[in-house]
């Protein structure tokens, strides 16, 4: 079989308007970034809240958070996505349903579904990291906070959380990277992020290897740069003497 290697393929016209294939990848990168960042915001806020809830003395609050984590961790991401995209919209109030299904651009409604899905999915993982971070602090810290007369809220606000959030930066970084990788499932409901663009390029140009190599390189570069940035952040916020070098 003949395969025509052509690494210039990305600068060639797609045959649609005057776009070149590289434009598709740039659009795809834009969607991937928009998905991952929005989902990460949801995950960080909700996951942080749930993580704190799991460490609270109140049985109800910690119980709710535990149920949440078990539910969202034990169902595959793809199943969750299909539920958010295909099932949930049908049970929204009539007016919201019409807005979501008809008024919105299909890409935007898919985007909303993926952000909600990925945000809630990742929140369960963030919750576990935050909980571990809080529980890893020496018991003396919360005892000392109590001894100086702090309420539970104050001890979290001034003593536990500022320390815990530094400890959890490395594990949270790897969750952040996972959000980028997991956002590729969006391609399965038709959102044109990087993976979907690579697939489309492969189909249009028949240059399968080049198309997927570029996608692989984009993910790889994205990953490496985030890791670099996060290790700088981690060094910046480290409390001298509190944590072992390397943050582990």
């Amino acid at each position, binding site marked *: 079989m003949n395969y025509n290697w052509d690494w210039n393929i990305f600068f060639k016209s797609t045959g649609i308007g005057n776009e070149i294939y590289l434009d598709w990848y740039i659009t795809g990168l834009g969607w991937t970034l928009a998905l991952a960042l929005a989902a990460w915001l949801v995950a960080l806020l909700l996951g942080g809240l749930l993580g704190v809830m799991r460490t609270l003395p109140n049985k109800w609050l910690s119980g709710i958070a535990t149920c949440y984590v078990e539910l969202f961790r*034990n*169902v*595959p991401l*793809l199943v969750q996505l299909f539920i958010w995209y295909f*099932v949930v919209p049908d049970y929204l109030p009539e007016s919201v349903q019409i807005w979501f299904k008809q008024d919105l651009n299909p890409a935007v409604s898919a985007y909303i579904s993926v952000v909600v899905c990925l945000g809630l999915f990742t929140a369960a993982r963030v919750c576990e990291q935050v909980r571990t971070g809080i529980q890893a602090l020496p018991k003396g810290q919360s005892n000392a906070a109590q001894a100086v007369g702090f309420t539970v809220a104050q001890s979290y606000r001034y003593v536990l959380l500022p320390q815990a959030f530094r400890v959890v930066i490395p594990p949270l970084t790897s969750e952040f990277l996972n959000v980028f990788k997991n956002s590729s499932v969006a391609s399965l409901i038709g959102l044109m992020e990087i993976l979907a663009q690579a*697939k489309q390029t492969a189909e249009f140009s028949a240059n*399968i290897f080049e198309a*997927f190599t570029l996608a*692989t390189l984009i993910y790889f570069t994205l990953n490496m740069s985030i890791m670099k940035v996060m290790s700088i952040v981690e060094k910046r916020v480290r409390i001298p003497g509190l944590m072992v070098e390397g943050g582990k």
Partner: protein
Amino acid sequence: MDFSQIIPALPDLMDGMWLTLKLMVMAVVGGVVLGTVLALLRLSSNPVLSGLAKAYVNIFRSVPLLLVIIWFYLAVPMLLNWITGEFVAVGAFTSCLVAFMMFEAAYYCEIVRAGIQSIAKGQVNAAYALGMTYGQAMRLVVLPQAFRKMMPLLLQQSIILFQDTSLVYAVGLMDFLSSARSRGDILGLPHEFLLFAGLIYFVVSFAASRGVKHLQKRLAV
């Protein structure tokens, strides 16, 4: 919501689950074997070998599994074609299996590496003192202890793999999720079948992770 139609469809769903489990078990076995080899390479004193293993792990850990599945689905038949020179039909199952094995090997490698490194140096030294070769020391002394230590982590990773097998939907393989989706579409009950599939995934994963926690407590020395 009408869940009664699921009962007659159960045999079909079982076929899907069977494929899911087959894929998972084969991927776990292949992934652990390949991961162990990679871990040994990474810990080797030869900088070329350890560098190659490190690059392998870094690349596979920085790309999405879905990308690897689609990559392999399109590339494996072509590669085989180039190597053997004739057209070989590779099913979606084989290409998915290769993709899972190679992808998961990167994750298993890190677990096995940590496991090997957690074994006291004296164990290896004692094995060498008894006149064992590197192979014998690894096979008879280090790896059996390391595997016992990392069993919970390996199983946890395998539960994640079980959930990730649902991604083969992307290449049209009839796993549990795909068969539930197609049954649901045929019967006009897509919501019910999807929720049922989610429930089954939940029950299996939840029970399995409970089991792993129990095992972890028992194995703890």
